[in-house]
């Protein structure tokens, strides 16, 4: 295990509690850089952008927000917000380009009709307006937007052990309001409490779901196959594992593509990763039949995420614990550990644009009413590289000068250069 100290952080103030499912990273304004979307217990939806000190957009009065997700409908990002009463709110933000176009059009109009009145710039605390809202069944826990055969589907997991899938059609009106139709396609009861739902794209048109339940039970199935063929889902499609010693351990699962390097078979490229609150992390094969790797940590783990944090072309896992320890795990199960100095109640990791470009960040909601974004991770490699190897790998003048020397002479030359400031 390697410890790292990550120093680059951005902090935002936030009031109220946030649930693990009510935080996500997505490009909501189509500017090719991601924003942070957070829903709070106090019914506030906050969107943070870049390194500005406060939120960029805000909507309030949304009730007890339990889950937030972003789906792309006709190249437009739609934010889905679900509260505990089952109310679903949809927000559609205009892209930066469109806003500019509207602003310039308005400017021309105002110049002509309002006698050159100055246009005030949009306030940074611009209130976000609800584009659409609908009452669905209460007690949702997880929401997810997926596409099946050209049709957008809204998947909702409930606290009462039910999974419902709605087909979803959205049309946008000219004034940014939405016309929406939800049709219930499937309702499916599972045996235990649903903790997370993760989807894995099988091909361009189809996906499968893995539901994680208490005590490390996982269910993998293809909901649309169940609907279309009317098969009994237990035949070969429902699998469960038992990975936790504790019956009630909270379990999270994610599908993990490109975790193992140099795998040529496309069907086994995706594996599933799980973490349980009693500290175990497991990797399962593509069909959940084989547990390929396992490790036990001494922390209460939550917030399992994936990403190429090392910048080496493969995905790694990132998971946090309540006391602020974050673990980054690669395919060799080498672990990098980073300690945030505060207790953490919500964690996510992924691409976020602190400056103009999307970079991998760790995002923490702490118990001190703060969102801490750790950016510029620079976790180059799990391996401890050495200077001599790196010089030989690069084609530069340094290599030309040093390559003909013996290793001892080369080391002597490097020491000489390093400690002599010219």
């Amino acid at each position, binding site marked *: 295990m390697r410890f790292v100290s990550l120093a680059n952080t951005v902090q935002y103030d936030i009031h109220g509690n946030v649930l693990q499912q009510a935080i996500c990273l997505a490009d909501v304004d189509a500017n090719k850089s991601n924003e942070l979307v957070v829903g709070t217990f106090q019914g506030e939806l906050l969107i943070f952008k870049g390194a500005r000190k406060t939120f960029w957009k805000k909507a309030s009065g949304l009730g007890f927000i339990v889950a937030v997700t972003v789906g792309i409908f006709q190249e437009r990002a739609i934010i889905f917000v679900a509260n505990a009463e089952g109310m679903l709110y949809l927000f559609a933000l205009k892209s930066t380009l469109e806003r500019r176009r509207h602003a310039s059009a308005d400017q021309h109009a105002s110049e002509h009709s309002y006698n050159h009145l100055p246009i005030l710039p949009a306030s940074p605390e611009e209130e976000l307006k609800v584009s659409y809202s609908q009452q669905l069944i209460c007690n949702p826990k997880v929401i997810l937007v997926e596409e099946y055969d050209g049709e957008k589907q809204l998947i909702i997991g409930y606290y009462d052990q039910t999974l419902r899938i709605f087909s979803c059609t959205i049309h946008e009106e000219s004034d940014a309001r939405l016309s929406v139709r939800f049709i219930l396609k499937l309702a499916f009861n599972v045996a235990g409490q649903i903790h997370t739902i993760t989807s894995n794209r099988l091909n361009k048109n189809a996906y499968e779901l893995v539901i994680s339940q208490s005590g490390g039970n996982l269910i993998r199935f293809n909901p649309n196959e169940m609907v279309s063929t009317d098969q009994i889902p237990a035949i070969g499609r429902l699998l469960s594992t038992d990975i936790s010693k504790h019956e009630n351990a909270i379990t999270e699962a994610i599908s993990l593509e490109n975790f193992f390097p140099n795998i040529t078979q496309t069907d086994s490229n995706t594996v599933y990763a799980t973490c349980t609150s009693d500290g175990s992390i497991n990797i399962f094969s593509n069909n959940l039949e084989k547990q390929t790797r396992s490790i036990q940590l001494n922390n209460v783990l939550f917030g399992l995420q994936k990403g190429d944090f090392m910048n080496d072309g493969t995905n790694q896992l990132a998971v946090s614990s309540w006391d602020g320890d974050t673990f980054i795990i690669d395919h060799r199960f080498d672990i990098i550990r980073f300690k945030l100095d505060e207790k953490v109640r919500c964690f996510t990791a992924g691409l976020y644009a602190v400056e103009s470009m999307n970079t991998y960040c760790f995002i923490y909601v702490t118990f001190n009413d703060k969102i801490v974004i750790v950016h510029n991770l620079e976790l180059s490699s799990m391996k*401890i590289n*050495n200077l001599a190897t790196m010089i030989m790998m690069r084609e530069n003048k340094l290599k030309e000068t040093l390559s003909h020397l013996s290793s001892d002479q080369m080391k002597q030359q490097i020491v000489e250069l390093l400690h002599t400031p010219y």
Partner: protein
Amino acid sequence: MEVTAHLNQRPASKKNGRGASIEYSQTNCECKTIPINFSQIQNSCRILSIEILPKFNSPPSIIFGYVKGTNSDDSSSFHLDRYQMSTIDQGQKVISHPCVLQFPPKFMKTITTKNLSTNEMETILLIGGGERLACFADRSERLIDATKSIEIYLPELKNLAGNVSSMDILLISDETQKMKQRLIICGHSNGFLNLTINDFQTGEIIHRSNEHDSFISSVRFFYHNYKPIEGEEPNLLVTSALEQAVVYRDVLSTHFLDPVVLATTDTRDCVTSSCIVDIDLDGKNEILLGTYGDTCFICRLPSVVEQQSPKGLSLISEESPLYRTLTLAASAYSLVCVDFTNDGLDEIIIATTKGLHIHQLGLDEVMYILNNRMEIKKQLSLTKTNEKNLSLIS
């Protein structure tokens, strides 16, 4: 090529008698951990101190002092034993020649010095914890008590009190590489500092002492320049449990008379360990301090203002010398800077109560610096040859 870096500071857990050595392989850039099982240590034993005993042409051995029995003084006994280090391929080897001591071995330090009676170089082991500082000699894989004959190894340490908690030695040679002076600083658990300067040319031994308020956790001699310039005097860094770290400047001439306090170094609990290294690659040494409060301070000493004078750190007490702070996972108890990867670049290795931190400089930036310096060096040598040619022509 394989590099083995054995950490010479307490590589074992006191509780379960297990430890580890870390080995870095340059071929595949990976660290291997070799577990060490001190089989001699039973449940009722507690390791008090550990030191490495270097050996010519073979891996070193670990000497460990431990206490057997309960905490009450009557029933407990004190022992010294050794463990032969080896690489993982060679298999592990334990040599057990236990040696019973009359006092708790709380501090150990190995020193290679000349035996004045035989004129041969020998490695001796100094052990603190008793009434007087004890000395053991390594004879055919056995440790022999040589306390009574300490004068033939280190005459300046004769009659030194046994409550030593830290020690450092500095050898000063003249232009012909002949040993000129030997400086030994001993920090004691009651806050005393003992400085001895043995001048080999005159045969004079100077003893100086000073007092701090608390346990001396580390003492280090250091030069401000990475490559000491001619006539530069060494400085002395002293860290203690309750106070801020102190630098005594130019100890050779002023002894303890010119102290400078490193302000704000007591803000993260007590300083437990220290190290001297040129970590920012500017040719000047920095001071690294490991603290109990999960932090490692990097203190940069301002560069010398009076360029002409070889003496002196132009440091003002009121200024905070902190250059950077490394956050650690747990309390640091030992700190070393070694070239772990055998590439000419020093790594900072910090042992904490939860594990080992290895900090390495960003290699891309280091390569950038190397490239720049190489260019400048080439240009400088070119101008020099041009000047030479010009002078020859004229």
